[in-house]
């Protein structure tokens, strides 16, 4: 992103993260009887453990948690990229949730229908997920571009509709009557997607992260569309004056973001869950939003931000198990990270202006 014009440096991201963690620790000390144990679990819980036992020798323990971190990193990277596309065109589209739900549903449906042909089924499922997300994101895009309807509101409402649509389809049309809870039939998993780590769902789909990140970075930096998108985001008036098709670019930014969210849905349906329960939890889209903010809208920083987020999320579960602190504490830390990451400076302007005035003439 652009640097602030007043010449003051933005605080680096690690300062924001360290400050937020410190705040979280202070909060833990206030409510917990064992803040040390709680925070230790939060920070080291997701790490694997090497353990010695006489029967088996050295063994790597807690691989499940490592697996969870990696799985979440994949999903969140894709969702982060999804949010980022809208943000770069200055569209505060928060519709990743709905696009993700419909992408997952479309991928599952194709996966089940083409269960007998894994070589055909997998790519078609990807295409289905991409298109579902693209179309659902495109609705909000067209509503904004054609009618000027605020994307904050439309995407939020489309999220609610998509989740209900998902539940209606899973409850009434597309469910497996052979199981005790309401869920879609399971996607038969081809050998291609066998777990890479034992007892986890980490599969070859991990490769989606570098691929999608490279694709997003290429789209934004090397194509006409990406250029138009950045111009519309950074200088909308200039874009309109110089003949950039603003409306089309705005609509496409949201639709392309939707395609990435749909891809995240594909990862969840084919990589993680295999069958989608009717009460699949909404809210992942908002986590993608935090990831995009944390990466400061830079595609290449998204995987790292997603990893940090996934790490904290898994650590929070470890903390809840190990101590009396509930995992929602991490939401507070994440909120602080967001607030601090988007700040241009960490001291009130007034205090900084004194030293600033000495160097430059006043505005």
């Amino acid at each position, binding site marked *: 992103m652009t640097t*602030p014009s007043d010449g003051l440096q933005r605080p680096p991201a690690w300062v924001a993260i360290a400050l937020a963690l410190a705040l979280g620790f202070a*909060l833990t000390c206030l*409510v917990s009887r064992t803040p040390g144990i709680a925070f230790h679990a939060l920070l080291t819980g997701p790490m694997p453990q090497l353990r010695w036992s006489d029967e088996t020798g050295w063994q790597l323990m807690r691989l499940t948690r490592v697996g969870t971190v990696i799985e979440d990193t994949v999903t969140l990277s894709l969702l982060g990229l999804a949010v980022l596309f809208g943000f770069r065109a200055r569209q*505060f589209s*928060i519709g990743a949730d709905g696009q993700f739900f419909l992408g997952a549903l479309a991928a599952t449906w194709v996966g089940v229908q083409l269960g007998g042909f894994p070589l055909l089924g997998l790519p078609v499922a990807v295409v289905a997920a991409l298109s579902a997300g693209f179309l659902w994101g495109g609705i909000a895009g067209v*509503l904004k571009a054609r*009618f*000027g*309807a*605020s994307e*904050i*509101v*439309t995407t*939020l*409402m*489309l999220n*609610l*509709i998509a989740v*209900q*649509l998902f*539940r*209606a389809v899973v*409850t*009434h049309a597309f469910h497996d009557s052979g199981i005790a809870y309401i869920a879609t039939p399971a996607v038969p998993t081809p050998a291609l997607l066998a777990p890479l780590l034992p007892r986890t769902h980490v599969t070859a789909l991990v490769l989606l992260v570098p691929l999608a990140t490279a694709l997003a970075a290429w789209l934004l930096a090397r194509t006409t569309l990406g250029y138009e998108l950045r111009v519309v985001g950074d200088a909308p008036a200039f874009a309109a004056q110089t003949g950039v098709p603003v409306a089309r670019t705005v609509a496409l930014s949201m639709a392309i973001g939707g395609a990435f969210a749909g891809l995240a849905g594909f990862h969840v349906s084919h990589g993680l869950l295999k069958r989608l329960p009717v009460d699949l939890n909404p809210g992942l889209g*908002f986590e993608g*939003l*935090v990831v995009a*903010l944390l990466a400061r809208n830079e595609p290449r920083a998204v995987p790292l931000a997603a990893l940090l987020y996934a790490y904290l999320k898994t650590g929070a579960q470890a903390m809840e198990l190990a101590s009396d602190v*509930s995992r*929602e*504490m*991490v*939401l*507070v830390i*994440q*909120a*602080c990270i*967001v*607030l601090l990451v*988007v*700040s*241009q*400076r*960490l*001291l*009130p*302007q*007034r205090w900084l202006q004194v030293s600033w005035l000495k160097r430059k003439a006043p505005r």
Partner: protein
Amino acid sequence: MSLESTSFALVAATLVAALLRAAAPIILAALGGLIAELAGVVNVALEGLMLLAAFFGVIGSAYALQWFPGAAPWVAPLAGLLAGLVAAVLGALLLAVFHLEFGADLIVAGIGINLLAAGLTVFLMVTLTGDKGSTAALASAVLPVLHLPGLAGWPALDTLLNGDGRGGHPLLVWVAFGAAALLSFLLYRTRLGLRLRAVGENPVAARAGGLPAKRLQYLALAASGVLAGLGGLYLAMGYLTLFQAEMSAGRGFLALAAVFMGGRRPLGTVLAALLFGASSVLATQLALFDIPSQVVYMVPPLVTIVALVVFSQRRAAAQRRLAAASLHQWRAAPQAAPQGETTS
């Protein structure tokens, strides 16, 4: 009056009474959104501020009940009211500090405050009650209800003004409409309102004109916190008498939508908020028929989108007309100017 028309009036009155109650929290939060928007600091954190007020209202009143069991009956609701409002105002001021002092993007910071509110309320709820879903285990207070006396002879009117059970609407329903009138007066009939709007229109010009722009924006966000807080308090200490995780359920965002749909004017904002209330009443009415609940839940967001599109379309058309008119004037002007004539 015949029997049919009487019962029809009664049904209509029941629906309108339900509408008033469903719309009240959205109206309150939307007014908060309006004052912030007019002062040039759009408040995306309404949702989180509602949550903060709802939670701290319940906690404040519950602890007042525990600590002062023998106190007068108005102590606990008042404690809840104050705790909720203080929490919401602090949340709004936090947003103001991050935007005005630390230079954070207002919309992103607003989303951050929403996250903070969602996390903090559940986190504190688990710490205080051990329950993740709601504070049902805590006895908390209800804000007062206003019963208008002397209407027993007119059943329809009584139902309209005192609610379905004719026990009276929560006081905050009346406060919502009172606040709308008051805010309208404040914004368009007082010097303070003019200054707030001037800052919102063009902060640089306002500052050049000697207005304390930053202080006015702090004030607007704090007022926004009070109004959104009242909306949240209504949810937890009127509509229900407990706090539930995520109980604002998107009303803060609906409120924000109401501000834009209402053309950034008090009356329009209230009407838009009433429309949102109506769509949720419609959903409850549809639920009485044999329709899948998922379809019913789709109604309010669909109505919102359609309404938003229609209103945005009309506003865009009005702007185009304005632009075309001024272009017409500009084209006509060169010939007209030397003679000193005015063309329109």
